[in-house]
């Protein structure tokens, strides 16, 4: 059994980037792992399987402790976060049909960010190779996995197609699935979870004007399937939780600009109406 290891580094996300994560539930970091590591990982899996990678220092340093990815994880999970102790490989012999939409077991609904489920592609993963498909904003949709089997094409779903060496970070409860692949060949996708060991607080890169509620903060680039303004409210609630200010959020009943979730006078942000 792999013992828990704690890791710390400098946070690399700004307020806006943290809030973007709160809105969408995922973040893509393209091509952050070097090509030689990607190739070494692919060759290693071919020769040894994926599980022994958990004990390989070069892999831990280059992937789990990758500066860009770890800096984002640090921003969202706080200092001294726990490194992954398990490493599944969603290895697919393409072509293959799409998987059912689902939330992973172990995820919990709510504004808390105590876990991050992270994915790494060691090879180029274009749409034809069946990358994971995610539904931005769905980390706020409550559904039991067993009640999601009949969902099919959903507006706003995004493919995490990316070049080799890409890592994408997700809120644990985001809806996702393997997309349909049409190419031939093996697609590896390593999946692992970090978790929080310290109480949340706003210790990422603060933007001085962020809390004044500038209108761009309220823009949602993805379609929402929620009730009007609910997406703003849920994202703000998660952001305040990450700041360690849940009580302050609960006490807010109105503001001329912030937090979103309450109709704002005199201006209307983009995507004001559900699509």
């Amino acid at each position, binding site marked *: 059994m792999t013992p828990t290891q704690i890791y710390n580094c400098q946070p690399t996300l700004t307020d806006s980037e943290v809030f973007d994560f709160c809105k969408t539930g995922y973040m893509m970091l393209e091509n952050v792992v070097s090509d030689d590591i990607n190739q070494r990982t692919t060759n290693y899996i071919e020769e040894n399987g994926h599980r022994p990678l958990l004990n390989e220092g070069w892999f831990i340093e280059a992937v789990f402790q990758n500066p860009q990815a770890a800096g984002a994880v640090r921003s969202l999970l706080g200092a001294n976060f726990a490194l992954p102790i398990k490493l599944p490989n969603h290895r697919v012999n393409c072509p293959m049909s799409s998987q059912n939409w689902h939330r992973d077991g172990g995820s919990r609904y709510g504004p808390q960010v105590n876990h991050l489920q992270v994915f790494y592609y060691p090879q180029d993963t274009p749409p034809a190779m069946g990358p994971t498909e995610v539904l931005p904003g769905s980390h706020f949709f409550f559904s039991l996995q067993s009640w999601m089997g009949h969902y099919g*094409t959903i*507006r706003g779903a995004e493919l995490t197609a990316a070049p080799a060496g890409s890592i994408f970070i997700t809120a644990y409860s985001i809806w996702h699935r393997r997309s349909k692949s049409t190419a031939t060949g093996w697609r590896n996708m390593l999946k692992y979870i970090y978790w929080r060991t310290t109480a949340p607080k706003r210790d990422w890169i603060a933007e001085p004007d962020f809390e004044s509620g500038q209108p761009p903060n309220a823009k949602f680039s993805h379609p929402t*399937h929620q*009730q009007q303004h609910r997406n703003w409210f849920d994202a703000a609630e998660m952001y305040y939780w990450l700041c360690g200010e849940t009580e302050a959020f609960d006490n807010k009943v109105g503001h001329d600009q912030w937090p979103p979730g309450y109709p704002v006078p005199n201006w209307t942000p983009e995507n004001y109406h*559900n699509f």
Partner: protein
Amino acid sequence: MKTTAQPNIRQDLLYIQTSSTALTSKIHGMLLLEDGEIIEPELPFLYHTPLDAIRDGWRVIQFPNAALMLDESKTYGLGCEFILEKIRGLDA
């Protein structure tokens, strides 16, 4: 073995999720069972609203479940769900 199944017909199903309970509300999600095959339609969807599907011969067999809409603290599932059917005659 005696069976009540009707061998000469087959049920097609259309699952659609919409933004509201209105028959004219926009469709967010869709899944089709057609002639025994499950199909995920590509965008843009063939139908824009449940009413479009009804006008094309689909019959509603389940309306959105109002019980899912009584708790404003959570967003349940993917919007309002209609399930429709068509009965397909099979060649003898």
